[in-house]
């Protein structure tokens, strides 16, 4: 399974929650598969999906799922200690770890080599870290949502992309409909 297969699998699970989605192909794929006003698509700023999602989770009570990638977590490594030390039980960080920078041409990341993001998240102090295979992501995510505990999920999947159009929606529209869903 590649990332878009994982997103297709989890779309029915995440559609009723606030979702912050990583820049580039992940956002474009989610937008194509199941566009929802509760999705915040990042159009810039690689690495900050987990930071934005934690901010949303700390500010209100609805459940928030940040969809991140191994490359972008590596870009913003400082986020994991911040998450570990500021627990929000309505927050789930889903790292789709395909061992590559998918949006830029599948260059390999260190997460696909010696570095284990699962081990890093645990070492940073995150208490509920679950590593799963791509096929099990939906089940693991649903369990995390039902468990009401902040959870970091590292989903190991294959590298690869589908052809998707860029998101042309105005950023203020994306932000405004997300905020209205959060406040609703």
């Amino acid at each position, binding site marked *: 399974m590649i990332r878009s297969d994982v997103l297709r699998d989890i779309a029915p699970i995440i559609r009723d929650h606030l979702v912050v989605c990583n820049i580039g192909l992940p956002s474009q794929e989610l937008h194509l598969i199941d566009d929802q006003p509760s999705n915040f698509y990042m159009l*810039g700023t690689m690495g*900050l999906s987990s930071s934005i999602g934690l901010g949303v989770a*700390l*500010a209100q009570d609805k459940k928030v799922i940040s969809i991140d990638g191994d490359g972008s977590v590596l870009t*913003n490594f400082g986020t994991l200690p*911040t998450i570990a030390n500021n627990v929000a039980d309505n927050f789930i960080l889903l790292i789709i770890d395909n061992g590559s920078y998918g949006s830029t041409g599948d260059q390999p990341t260190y997460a696909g080599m010696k570095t284990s993001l699962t081990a890093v998240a645990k070492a940073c102090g995150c208490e509920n870290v679950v590593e799963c295979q791509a096929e099990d992501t939906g089940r693991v995510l649903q369990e995390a949502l039902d468990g009401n505990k902040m959870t970091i999920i590292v989903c190991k999947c294959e590298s690869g992309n589908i052809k998707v159009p860029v998101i042309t929606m105005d950023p*203020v529209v994306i*932000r405004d409909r997300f*905020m209205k869903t959060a406040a609703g």
Partner: protein
Amino acid sequence: MSVSQKIVADLVANNIEFITTVPCKQLAGVIDEVEASPAIHHIPANKEDEGIGLCAGAWMGGKRPAIIMQNTAIGVVVNTLVTLTQFYRMPLPMLISYRGELREPVACQVEMAVHTKALLNQLHIPTYHFHKEADAAELDAILKYTFMCNKPVAILTDASFWGGYGDQ
């Protein structure tokens, strides 16, 4: 009331409930007041772009944010300010220690100080400079302005404003 207490009182009076900080020696007093305030959720960040991401999320979740950081951070956060805060039109008061100005003991700080206002100007970020303690009287109006216009706004606070570094 100390100047740090006055600053935090203005933040609280403007319903700012979520503050991220990356420390600076000059800001230690105000960060202590932020941490001590029961009205503020204080999240220390490891890097300033992470802090701005947290602030963006908090604002979308319904809480008014602010970030407290050093001016060297301007060199770190240009992309985040442009493609997140400005592109999505989000308000963000940035209380910034203006290192490298008069009374600065560390020469390297001057290297970033000479670029600070030029970068903020290039980014079209409204910028206010507190040099004397009385300048802090404008903070309340600056905060109201920030949340009126949905922009990042910089408040530079130099060593003279904070009373210098003591004996040198």
